[in-house]
């Protein structure tokens, strides 16, 4: 293990999974509580497609990924706003169409497709200095913004219309959240991959949602789960010699299942002690 830690690739990988774990899981808290996962899915595919476009056009993939992500946020935000959008169907349509688009671009990529495929699955063991800097910058920005605007974010997460009506700039907060999720996706592209990043956004937050009693602790628990998934997946991938991105997702899914089991167990115990005569859960 000591040998591994001294390895510069491994050090980068440990740092990158930590940063991606924290950023993705914090954004995930907002995506899960505001129920905008369909926007998140779309943005992660748009980031992937954008990066492919960059490879095809021979420009910096990060830049094109960012552009396409922000464009998709700019289209989906207002659509979701107007409410002529049923999350279920849109999720299906957006998921399949953006994925189809990405695969179409993938087939156009000239020459060997290793770089392009790397964007799909990600590989923490090959992230470079620049990737780490970008991840660190995004992580720092998001943590600072969360602290600065915590009360506004809390009110918007609770109910956007009421937040707006009480004089909070809820629309600006909402679009700020969309932009931050876009940035997170793009920054995690090389480490986690365009297909998998969304699971790292949702799973730790969904797990924290099962157990947290207030928003602040939900952020902390989710970040903890995110980092655990990242490091756990990395460790497993060294052990089994399998792709890290996929194992990170497997690990985060296990954490989610554990949290769900824990919360339902805790609740059934509480109910059976406090009100033994109640059959169902009280509404």
């Amino acid at each position: 293990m000591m040998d591994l830690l001294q390895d510069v690739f491994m050090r980068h990988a440990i740092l990158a999974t930590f940063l991606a774990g924290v950023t993705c899981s914090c954004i995930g808290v907002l995506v899960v509580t505001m129920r905008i996962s369909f926007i998140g899915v779309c943005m992660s595919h748009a980031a992937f497609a954008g990066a492919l476009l960059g490879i095809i056009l021979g420009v910096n993939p990060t830049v094109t990924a960012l552009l396409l992500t922000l464009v998709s946020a700019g289209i989906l935000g207002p659509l979701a706003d107007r409410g002529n959008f049923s999350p279920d169907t849109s999720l299906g349509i957006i998921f399949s169409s953006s994925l189809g688009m990405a695969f179409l671009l993938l087939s156009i990529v000239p020459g060997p497709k290793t770089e392009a495929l790397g964007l799909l699955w990600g590989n923490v063991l090959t992230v470079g200095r620049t990737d780490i800097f970008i991840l660190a910058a995004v992580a720092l920005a998001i943590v600072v913004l969360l602290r600065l605007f915590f009360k506004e974010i809390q009110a918007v997460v609770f109910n956007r219309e009421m937040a707006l009506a009480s004089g909070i700039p809820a629309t600006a907060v909402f679009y700020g959240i969309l932009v931050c999720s876009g940035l997170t996706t793009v920054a995690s592209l090389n480490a986690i991959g365009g297909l998998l990043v969304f699971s790292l956004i949702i799973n730790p937050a969904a797990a924290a949602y099962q157990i947290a009693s207030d928003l602040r602790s939900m952020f902390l628990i989710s970040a903890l789960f995110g980092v655990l998934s990242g490091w756990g997946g990395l460790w497993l991938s060294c052990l089994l010699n399998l792709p890290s991105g996929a194992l990170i997702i497997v690990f985060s899914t296990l954490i989610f299942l554990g949290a769900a089991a824990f919360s339902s167990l805790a609740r059934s115990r509480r109910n059976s002690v406090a009100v033994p005569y109640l059959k169902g859960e009280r509404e």
Partner: protein
Amino acid sequence: MGSKVCAILADGINTAYHGLPVLQRFSLQVPEGELLGVFGPNGAGKSTLLKVCLGLVPPVSGNMRICGYRMIRENVPFVRKLTAYVPQSFDVDRRMPVMAAEVVMMGRFGRMGLFSRPGPNDHLAAGNALDMLGVGHLAERAFGRLSGGEKQRVIIARGLAQEPRVLLMDEPTNSLDWESQRRICRLIREVHTDRKLTTIIVSHDIDLLADTCDRIVLMEQGCIVMERDPSEFRHCCRGQAHS
């Protein structure tokens, strides 16, 4: 302007959703300190009226003044801090990690402005609002797991914590059982006499409005078609229903 400033002054308001008109040349004056009931069938535009008061739905034409301030773009954020809103429905997930006390404190956030944290005044106002609505014992409970009536009272407490000059309530007793309905009515009345707060209650429950309000207007298809004292109003509507 007269000796008494109108808390709400709507003059010839027209609104539309996707080109379909809702409020049509709508005019209304609510003097300061009045408790006004707005009664009418579904789709009459009652909720839309409250949203226009909050600047959530911009009127196509017409003039709206809240506490003397014109509802123009620059004034909207300020006016929203003066008006508290209890929406018709607030669907909040059962697992939402927010406690009732935090929900009430959210009423203060707009007034506090960006970058500031709740101070002693804010805690005092939130605590008073919780007590006034009799939900102090629920402070530490998760909002999403409260019963319908408890949620409603917490949301009204949130509005009062804002220390508004105008309180707008959209069907505050909807989906509540009879006893909770009576209780909410009594509370609204108490709060009103206690704070001399200009209040609009939208409802399609005549008895609720007749028991609570100073004046009642009947809205149909985006206009006010009748305006009465509560006692006469009940009589009129019953009459209409029978004819």
